[in-house]
C-alpha cells in the first residue's frame, strides 16, 4: 500500500489526463461493462434507444456548453422546452415546418431576453435565467391551459420516431447540431470571441471584442437549441406536456457539460466532451435501471458523478 502513493507531478499528470479524457474513458468502460454483464444490451434496438434518449439532453447541453464557455449559466432551458411544447398543438394545423419555425422564434426570443439582461444590464446569469425558469413554465401552462394534449399528426410524430437511412431523426439532428457547434467554437470568429469573453471579460472588453453581442448570441443559441429539443421530445412523446417536459433539464444539461470537461469558470468549450457527457449520463442511468437498481439510486449516483467530475476539473483552475 505504502509504495503505491503517487508523487505530486504524477498526480498532476493523472489529473490532467483525466480532465482531458476521463469522460471518453468512462463511456468506454461503461459500454464494456454493459456488453459483458447486461442482458440484451448488445443489440441494435438497444443502442438506438440509448442514443434517442440521450439526444434531447445532448442538444440542450450544446447550448449550455456555449453559455458556460462565457462563464454564464442558463437555468431557463427546461422552461423553454415546455414553452415550445405548449406551442406545438397551436400551430400543428399549419404543418410541422410551421411548428418548428414558431418554436425556434420563441426559443430565440427567450434567449435574446436572457442575453439582454446579462449583457446590457449586467445581471448575473443565474438570476437572469432564473426569472425565465420560474415564469417560462407558467407561461407554457397558461398557453396550454395546463392541459396535456395528445398529438396525431403523422408528419410531426415522425420527427420523434422516424428514421433517415436507418438513423433516428432525433439522433441525426443531435449529431448535426454537435458538428455545427464544434465548427462554431473552433472555426469561427464568434467562437474565438466566445472563448475570449469567458476567459477574461475585462481583457476581451479592452481588446475591443463585441462582448455584448457574443453574450446575447450564446443565450439566443441556447434558447433555440432548447426549443428544438422541446419540439423533438414532444414529437417522440406524441403529446404536448408543458407540465413535465424539460423538468430539471437544466441540471442534466449542466451535468453533461461539466462532466464533459468544460469548466464552469468559462474560457473553454468542449463540444465533443459535452456530447460524451450526455451519453455518459444516459448510460449510467440505463446501467442502473437495467440492473434493477431503482431511480433513487440512479439520482444519487448522478450526484456523486457531478461532484467527482467537478472535483477533478477544479485542479486546473487552482494550478
Amino acid at each position: 500500500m505504502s509504495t503505491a502513493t503517487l508523487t505530486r507531478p504524477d498526480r498532476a499528470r493523472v489529473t490532467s489526463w483525466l480532465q482531458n479524457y476521463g469522460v471518453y474513458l468512462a463511456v468506454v468502460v461503461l459500454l464494456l461493462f454493459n456488453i459483458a454483464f447486461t442482458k440484451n444490451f448488445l443489440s441494435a434496438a438497444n443502442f438506438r434507444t440509448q442514443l434517442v434518449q440521450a439526444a434531447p439532453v445532448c442538444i440542450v447541453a450544446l447550448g449550455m456548453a456555449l453559455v458556460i464557455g462565457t462563464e454564464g449559466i442558463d437555468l431557463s432551458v427546461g422552461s423553454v422546452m415546455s414553452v415550445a411544447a405548449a406551442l406545438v398543438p397551436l400551430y400543428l394545423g399549419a404543418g410541422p415546418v410551421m411548428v418548428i419555425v414558431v418554436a425556434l422564434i420563441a426559443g430565440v426570443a427567450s434567449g435574446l431576453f436572457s442575453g439582454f439582461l446579462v449583457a446590457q444590464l449586467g445581471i448575473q446569469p443565474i438570476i437572469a435565467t432564473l426569472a425565465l425558469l420560474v415564469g417560462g413554465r407558467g407561461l407554457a401552462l397558461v398557453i396550454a391551459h395546463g392541459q396535456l394534449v395528445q398529438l396525431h399528426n403523422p408528419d410531426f410524430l415522425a420527427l420523434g420516431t422516424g428514421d433517415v437511412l436507418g438513423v433516428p431523426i432525433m439522433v441525426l439532428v443531435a449529431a448535426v447540431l454537435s458538428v455545427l457547434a464544434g465548427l462554431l467554437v473552433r472555426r469561427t470568429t464568434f467562437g474565438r470571441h466566445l472563448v475570449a469573453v469567458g476567459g477574461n471579460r475585462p481583457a476581451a472588453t479592452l481588446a475591443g471584442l463585441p462582448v455584448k453581442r457574443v453574450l446575447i448570441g450564446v443565450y439566443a443559441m441556447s434558447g433555440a437549441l432548447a426549443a428544438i429539443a422541446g419540439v423533438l421530445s414532444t414529437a417522440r412523446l406524441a403529446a404536448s406536456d408543458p407540465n413535465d417536459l424539460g423538468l430539471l433539464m437544466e441540471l442534466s444539461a449542466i451535468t453533461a457539460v461539466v462532466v464533459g470537461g468544460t469548466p464552469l469558470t468559462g474560457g473553454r468549450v468542449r463540444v465533443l466532451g459535452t456530447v460524451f457527457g450526455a451519453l455518459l449520463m444516459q448510460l449510467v442511468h440505463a446501467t442502473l435501471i437495467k440492473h434493477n437498481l431503482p431511480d433513487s439510486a440512479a439520482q444519487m449516483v448522478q450526484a456523486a458523478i457531478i461532484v467527482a467530475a467537478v472535483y477533478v476539473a477544479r485542479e486546473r483552475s487552482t494550478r
Partner: protein
Amino acid sequence: MIATTAAPPSERGAAFAAVLQRQGAAVVLVLGVAAAWFAFPRFGSADNLRDLALQSSFLAVIALGMTFVIISGGIDLSVGSVYALGGVLAAYGSRYGLVVAILLPLVVCGLIGLINGLLIARTKMAPFIVTLASLLFARGLLLALTNEGATTYKVGPGSALLWLGQGKIFGIGVPVYLALVLFGLGGLLLRRTRFGQSVFALGGSEQSALLMGLPVARTKITLYTLSGTLAGFAGVLTAAYLQSGVTVLGVGTELDAISVVVIGGTLLTGGAGTVVGTLVGVLLKTLIQNVINQVGTLDSNYQTVVSGAFLLVVVVIQRLLARSRRS
C-alpha cells in the same frame, strides 16, 4: 463631477436610491396589501390574513437559511429536496415519538448541509454545483426511503408533532410563531455576532476576509449546515401541518427561496442583505398568490408568470439603482 454645494442633489438621490434598494419590497408590500384590502372584501378578513401568515411561514424558514448563504456570496440549491426529505423523515420518525420526529430530520438535513459546507470550504468547488449535486442526492435519498415515492408516511393522529403544524396560539398558527422566533434569532446572529460579521465580510470579499484572519472555512461550513437544518425544519413543520411526508413537495422551492431573498433586497453578489427584507419578500410572494386566487377568474398558472416577472423587475431595479449610486 465638481462638488459645489454641501449636499449636492446627486448625493441625496443616491441616498434615496439606497433606501429604495433596501426598502423597495416593503413599499410594494404595503401598497399591495392596501390595494388588495380595497379590491377584495375577503382579503382583509382575519381568516384570510391568518392563512397568509401560515402559508408564508414554511417558505420563510427555508428562506432564512438562504439569506445567510446568499449574503456570504454563496447559493444553496439543495434546500427544496432537503425540505421534502425533512418532511418525510419527520413523518417517518413520528411513530417513534416526538423527539425522533424532530431530531431525525434535523440531524440528517443538517448533515447534508454540513457535507455541502465541507465540500465548498475545503475543495473550493462552486457552491452552485455542490448544492446542485446534493439536490439530486437528497431527492434520491427521499425516493429510496419511500420505495420510489410509493409509500407515504403518515403522522399518527395522536402524535404530539401535529401541534407544531396545526396548533394555534391566540388563533394564529404555531408555525407563524416559530418562523418569527427563528427570524428574530437569525437577525441577532447576523447583526450582533462575530459569525454574522464574518458572513458579511465573506460576501464582500473572500480575499479580504482571509487577509483579515476571519475563519472563512468554518463560517462557510456553519452557513450551509444552518441552511440545511432550517430547510429540514421547514419540512418538519410542513409534515406536521399536512399530517404526512409528501414526497412531491419542494420541487423548485430552492428557486422560490432565492427569489424571495433577492426580492427582499439581499444582493446575489453577496455582502449586503437583511433577514427582515426576506420576510417581506416571502409575504409579497404569498400576497401575489393570494390576490391571484382572489381574482378567481385568472388562471392559477399566472402565479408563476407573475412571480417570475416580479423577480425580474426587482432585480433590474436593484441593478439600475446600484449603477446610479456608483456613478
